[in-house]
C-alpha cells in the first residue's frame, strides 16, 4: 500500500488506512534510531529543502535528523536568511528552489494554506511542517504514534486537548487523526480561544478542566502564546493558569494511567506545572524522540516506497 498523494498537506485528506500505514512504517524506522549506526541509504541521492518561513527549532531539527538518517541531501532555507526579507514573493522563492530540482520541500509557514499554494506550483513533494493555524500533520502523527506506543490502541480512548484551540495548528490535525482512528476527543479552553462551530468536527467542547479531564486516557496540553495576554483573549497568565493550568491535583481527575502530552515548547507554570511536565506520566520527551521516526516514515512513503522499511537497506539508491 502507498499514500495516495505525493504531498502531505494535512491529516484531513488522509484515510485511516494511510494513517495506520505511516504509523506502522514509523515503527520500523524507530528501530534504526536505536542502532549504533543510525543511518540507512534509503533516500540517498534525494534532495530535501527545509523551507522554514517561521522560526521552529524543534520541528526543523527533527526533520533534518530524519533526512540525515535516511541519507538524503538536505538544505535549510529560513525566512530570516532568505530573499523573502528582500521582498521576493513566495511563488518566486518556490520557483527558484524548484529550479534546483529537490525531491521534497518541507515547509513551515505562518499563513494557513501556504503549502497548498506551493503544491500547485511545484513538482516536488510538499510536506506541511505547520501552516498558520491550520494543520501540523507530522505533529499529529507523532502524537498518535506516542499514544499507540503507550496505550496500544487509539480507538476508544478519551483524549482531552486543553488550551489555545483557536490558534493551534496542532489541534486541528490531532482532531482529524484521533477521530479517524476512533478516539473520543474533548476540547477545553476559554471561549475566547475556541473557534466557532468546532464541535462540528465531531468533538465535545467544554470550558471546565474538571469535565475535560474526567476519565481521560490522554491529556494533551497546547502552548499558550504569552503575547495574546492583554489582547482580549484572556485577562492574565495568572488567571489562565488558575483556570486551565495542568496541576497534579487536576491530573488526578484523569485515569490513573493517563499520559500527558505537549507539542512543546512548554511554558512551565503557564499551561503546565513543572512537577507534571517532568512527572512519571509525562511523555513529552517521547514525543520528541518519536518525531524523528514518524518523519522518516513520511519521507520514505512519499518517496514512493511501499511501507516496508525493513527492506529499505536492501535497496540502496532509492
Amino acid at each position, binding site marked *: 500500500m502507498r499514500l495516495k498523494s505525493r504531498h502531505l498537506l494535512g491529516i*484531513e485528506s488522509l484515510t485511516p488506512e494511510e494513517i495506520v500505514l505511516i504509523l506502522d512504517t514509523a515503527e520500523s524506522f524507530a528501530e534504526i534510531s536505536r542502532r549504533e549506526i543510525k543511518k540507512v541509504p534509503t533516500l540517498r541521492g534525494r534532495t530535501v529543502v527545509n523551507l522554514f518561513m517561521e522560526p521552529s527549532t524543534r520541528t526543523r531539527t527533527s526533520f533534518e535528523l530524519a533526512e540525515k538518517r535516511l541519507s538524503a541531501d538536505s538544505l535549510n532555507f529560513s525566512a530570516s536568511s532568505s530573499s523573502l526579507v528582500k521582498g521576493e*514573493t*513566495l*511563488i518566486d522563492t518556490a520557483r527558484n528552489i524548484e529550479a534546483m530540482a529537490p525531491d521534497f520541500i518541507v515547509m513551515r*509557514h505562518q*499563513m*494557513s*494554506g*501556504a503549502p*497548498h*499554494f506551493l503544491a500547485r506550483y511545484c513538482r516536488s513533494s510538499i510536506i506541511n511542517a505547520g*501552516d*498558520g*493555524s*491550520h*494543520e501540523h500533520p507530522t505533529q499529529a502523527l507523532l502524537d498518535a504514534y506516542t499514544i499507540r506506543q503507550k496505550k496500544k490502541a487509539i480507538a476508544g480512548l478519551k483524549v482531552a486537548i486543553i488550551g489555545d484551540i483557536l490558534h493551534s*495548528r496542532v489541534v*486541528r490535525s490531532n482532531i482529524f487523526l484521533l477521530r479517524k482512528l476512533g478516539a473520543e476527543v474533548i476540547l477545553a479552553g476559554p471561549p475566547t480561544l475556541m*473557534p*466557532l*462551530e*468546532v464541535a*462540528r*468536527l465531531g468533538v465535545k467542547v467544554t470550558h471546565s478542566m474538571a469535565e475535560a479531564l474526567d476519565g481521560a486516557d490522554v491529556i494533551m496540553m497546547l502552548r499558550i502564546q504569552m503575547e495574546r495576554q492583554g489582547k482580549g483573549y484572556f485577562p492574565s497568565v495568572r488567571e489562565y493558569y488558575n483556570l486551565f493550568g495542568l496541576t497534579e491535583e487536576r491530573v488526578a481527575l484523569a485515569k490513573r494511567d493517563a499520559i500527558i502530552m505537549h507539542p512543546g515548547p512548554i511554558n512551565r507554570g503557564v499551561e503546565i506545572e513543572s512537577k507534571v511536565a517532568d512527572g512519571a506520566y509525562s511523555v513529552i520527551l517521547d514525543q520528541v524522540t518519536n518525531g524523528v521516526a514518524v518523519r522518516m516514515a513520511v519521507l520514505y512513503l512519499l518517496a514512493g516506497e511501499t511501507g516496508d522499511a525493513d527492506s529499505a537497506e536492501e535497496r540502496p539508491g532509492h
Partner: protein
Amino acid sequence: MRILLKNGRVIDPGRGVDETLDVLIEDGKISAVAVNIPKSAAESTYDLAGLIVAPGFIDIHVHLREPGREDKETIESGGRAAAAGGFTSVACMANTSPVNDNQSVTDFILAQAREKSPVNVFPIGALSKGLKGEQLSEIGDLVHRGAVAISDDGEPVASGFLMRKALEYARMFDIPVIAHEEEPSLANGGVMNEGFVSTLLGLRGMHAAAEEAMAYRDIRLAEVTGGRLHLAHISTAATVELVRTAKSRGVRVTAEATPHHFTLTDESVKGYDTNTKMKPPLRTAADRDAILEGLRDGTIDAVASDHAPHCQDEKDVEYDTAPFGIVGLETSVALGLEHLVATNLLPLKRFVELYSSGPARVLGLMKGTLAVGADADVTVFSVKKETTVDPARFRSRSRNTPFAGMKLRGAPLMTIVGGKVVHGAL
C-alpha cells in the same frame, strides 16, 4: 443614425412593459416603442426575435483603478468590460490613487470616460478626505462636478459621528451615502467568513456581526438624519432583515447584493484559492439564501458587481497576503440569468429591474427606462444562450474570478449606449 430593434421581447419594468415590440432609436434617444415599426424608419435594423430588449444595465459599484493602478484596469478597459458584460453605465468608487476626494480627480475621471469609455461612467466621490474617515471631503464641489454619491468604500467609516455628519450633509444634494458595512475591530483582520469553514481551514475569520452591527448603526443614523443611505454589497441574512424592517419603517435605505454573494458560499474557500477572497467575505448557505430572498421580495434594490480588478501576481500569493476582491463586470449578468432566472427564482421583469431601473433609482440617475425621449441605453440578452466563463477572453485588464470554467445559461448579446452599438455578439 437610426437603429431599429425588431421583434424583441421588450421588458421595461419602470413602465410595466413586457411584450414583443420594436424599438426605434434616433439621435441617441428612444424615439418610438411600438408594434411593427417599418424597417424603412431606420438605416440599421436588428431582428431580435427570441431575445430580450431591456433598459441599459447599470452597475453601481465598480472599481476602475484609474487614476493610480492602470496596470489593473483603466477607465477604457473597464468600460469595455462593462459593455461586453451588458452594462451601459457604471458608477466607480473613489478609492483610486489619488483618491477621488476633490474636483480635479472627478474631472479627470469624467474626461477619460468621455474620451475612452464606451459606457457611461458616474463617479462616486469620497465621503472623507483621503478615505481616512476623519474629515468630510468637499462633497458640494464633487457633486457640482458630477459625483452621484459619496462613499469611502473599501475603508469602512469607523466613526459614527462622521457617518452621521455625512448623512446630514449629503441631504443638501439629495445624493446617497454608500456604506461599506464592516466594524473594523470586529472584523479583526479576518480574511474570510468566521464560521465552521474558517475553523476548518485555520484562516482568521470576520464574523457576520461585523457587518450587521455597523449596518444597524447606519440605518439608525439614516433614520435620525433623514439622509439617504445605500448599503453596498450586503452579505448576511441579518443585514437583509435589517434592511427589510428599516424599509417597512420608512427609512430612506437601499441595498445592493453581488453575484458572488448570491451564488457562492464560504465552502468555496476550501483549497485556498485567493479568487475566493473578497470583502465582505463569502458567507454561509443560509446567508446566500437570505440574499436570494431579498432579491426576490424587493428588499434588495440592485445587483452590483463590486468589480475589483487585481493583477495575477498580487493574487498568486498566500491567502492571508492576497488583496480582497474579484472582477465581475463580465460575469454579473450571466450569473444573474443562471442563478436568478434559469432557477425560476425571479420573473424576468424583476431580474431586469435589479439590473436597470433599480440601480438607476438608487443613484437617482435619469436612466433605466426605454420611455420615448430617454437616452438610448439598451441591453439585449438571451436567456437561453449557454456560455462558459473564460477569463482569457475578458476585456478587463484583470482575470481574478472564481467563476472560471463555469457553465452559465443566459448571456448579454448587445449593448447600446446613447444610440451607439458598443458591443455586439449577435
